[in-house]
């Protein structure tokens, strides 16, 4: 991969990427969504989906108690069934990382922290870096940062790149997920460019959305990002992950995303190391469908914990 050392060559590279035809991309995503995943394939997909969830709470009203409850759910999603896999990580605001780390110690469940003035990203770089460092110091294993969409839309790719690179440095050992906030980028060409920009700057994951802007994750946007990570690996050898987040609520939705991964980036991405689902209410629907598959009957919502 050539090194892109200045703003001009970075811009030229991003604008030299093949364009995305929106109609065609939407059609492809819609067609893959008609795949019919049944019986054994469905059982496997449900467990895979559970193991890929970043169980998330990102509210102003979050408390340590709320985080503790979420951590318990993350380790034992279905208290009555030990065969249910753990989720991948718990995702919280940076001031609650310490609590989550204490709860999840030794469980294998990661702690992800949003950082860099989430969700708007409108803060000075020093504040963003301080936010990140604090989360890392408190034990976060993953940082979910937001890009500066204003700078991106204004064409200042260098600023976006430099910020991502600086945050990556501040992450030390922690994995960096870069949130593109595709609902504000609007075009698929922008999504592809922002994805490449984040990967060039060192992202370990590219993530669709904060969940605070509509639309959040969509299938076509995720398709574009999966194509980007596939092409990036072909070019550089480095495998970057993808995380759609926001609005994924049902098992059906989750399975559509897995099919998209399987047939776009390929089976190498079908692991929590390279694909995550940012969600909260999704887990209970997955559990409900899981029990339905196993027993043949639906259990009511009261049989699954609300956390």
């Amino acid at each position, binding site marked *: 991969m050539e090194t892109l050392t200045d703003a001009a060559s970075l811009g030229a590279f991003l604008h030299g990427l093949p364009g995305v*035809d929106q109609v*065609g991309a939407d059609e492809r995503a819609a067609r893959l969504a008609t795949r019919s*995943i049944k019986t054994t394939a469905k059982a496997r997909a449900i467990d895979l989906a559970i193991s890929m969830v970043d169980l998330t709470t990102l509210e102003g009203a979050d408390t340590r108690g709320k985080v503790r409850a979420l951590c318990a759910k993350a380790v034992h999603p279905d208290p009555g069934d030990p065969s249910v896999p753990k989720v991948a990580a718990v995702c919280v605001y940076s001031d609650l990382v310490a609590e989550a780390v204490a709860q999840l110690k030794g469980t294998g469940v990661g702690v992800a922290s949003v950082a860099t003035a989430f969700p708007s990203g409108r803060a000075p770089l020093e504040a963003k870096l301080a936010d990140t460092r604090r989360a890392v110091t408190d034990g976060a294993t993953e940082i979910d940062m937001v890009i500066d969409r204003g700078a991106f839309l204004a064409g200042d790719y260098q600023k976006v790149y430099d910020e991502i690179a600086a945050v990556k440095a501040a992450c030390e050992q922690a994995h960096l997920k870069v949130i593109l906030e595709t609902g504000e980028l609007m075009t698929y060409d922008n999504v592809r460019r922002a994805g490449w920009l984040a990967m060039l700057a060192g992202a370990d994951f590219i993530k669709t959305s904060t969940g605070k802007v509509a639309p959040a994750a969509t299938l076509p946007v995720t398709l574009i990002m999966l194509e980007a990570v596939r092409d990036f690996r072909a070019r550089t050898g480095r495998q970057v992950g993808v995380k759609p987040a926001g609005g994924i609520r049902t098992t059906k939705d989750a399975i559509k995303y897995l099919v998209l991964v399987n047939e776009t980036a390929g089976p190498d991405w079908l692991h929590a190391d390279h694909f995550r689902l940012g969600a909260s209410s999704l887990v209970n629907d997955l559990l409900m469908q899981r029990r339905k598959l196993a027993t043949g009957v639906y259990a009511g919502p009261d049989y699954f914990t609300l956390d």
Partner: protein
Amino acid sequence: MFEYAPAPESRDIVDIKPSYGLFINGEFVDGHGESFKSINPASEETLAEIACAAPQDVDRAVHAARQAYDAVWSGLPGRERAKYLFRIARIIQERSRELAVLESIDNGKPIRESRDVDLPLVAAHFFYYAGWADKLAYAGFRRSPTDGAGGGADPRPIGVAGQVIPWNFPLLMLAWKIAPALACGNTVVLKPAETTPLTALAFADICRQADLPPGVVNIITGAGETGQALVAHPDVDKVAFTGSTDVGRQIARSVARTGKRLTLELGGKAANVIFDDAPLDQAIEGIVNGIFFNQGHVCCAGSRLLVQESVAEELLGRLKSRMATLRIGDPLDKNTDIGAINSAAQLEKIRMLSEIGEREGAARWSPPCELPSRGFWFAPTLFTDVAQSHRIAREEIFGPVLSVLTFRTPAEAVEKANNTPYGLSAGVWTEKGSRILWMAERLRAGVVWANTFNKFDPAAPFGGYKESGFGREGGRHGLAAYLDV
């Protein structure tokens, strides 16, 4: 690897009778020819015994159509004809799952396509032409100078239409033929292809369900001789044929100097042209959809891929990876992308031309895939290093076989794309709008798709240049074939 478990669509919804007669004058009657079998190309199981219409049966059907034309249909006001067509369209929608399963069983096409493409288009065609039936005076054609029950304002129908359709889109081609004919006030005798008669016979049942007056639609089954007898019948006023260019020629000869109207929709060897500034990922989908849709049994299939040399290597690498994800097998499995080849004869033709391609020096490639042991199957196939002079670059293969050629400049792309006796369709892939228009002006093809392929809509006219035929089906233009204008 994420293996998808089998997800078969249930066959229970279809009720295939052991044998079928001819549908003449609103009733199923025996034929005087030697009956034949329709088989499931995915398993070679016999589905039903089908009556064969001998010349006297053809005569009977044409007579029934003439009577219905004179006594009922040509005199009905457009709004009344529209009611029947709307009713048929709604019944097709109500029975769409049944018809889709039946189509996949008889034809071999994947249920995903019969369910998501064929059937919605079939219903849409009937709805579209139902809407025209009482507005023919506003279609831009010369108005009838004299009477007619429409008060002299509507252009008049032609009479009895003899229609012969192919096996690749059995029910959709039926809709393309019958909907405009009926909307314009004609009556029809339609012959479905020998290997795929079942959905046309189900349509006969739908005509009865819709209370269509007897004789307005007659369905006669049989092979080539039945078709010949139909188009040669002296009381047929209009012949419409979709199928191979060879048969089209024979038909043109047979109706010459008879005064019959004729429209032909024949073969193709469409160029799908990929420029270096194309949206590559979508172009890959367009290439796959262009040639592997319906096993490549598509007259407008994008069977010649013209790639700009500067992106050829990258594009072919991506195309191969994509082809490796195609799922071949049981047409009724909801995850199948490529179904069965329609008949042993067609499979033989595809094999023969592919072997010729190899012998002529083109490089053949297919992704690793397991084909079922029974039935007719052909792996999706890519030929590179193809020259314009190779037979696989010139002849219609009508199978899942793509020939790849390269070009250097837009002018060369146009020259190569047009260098074929056919001219049915073409595709252009570029992010540059002005180039799309530049190409569309120069490509000698009835349809030019820009950044998409195999896109159909009842409002869009469809038809060919050169040896791909003449006349247009669909849209306002499609009315002209069934009006005395």
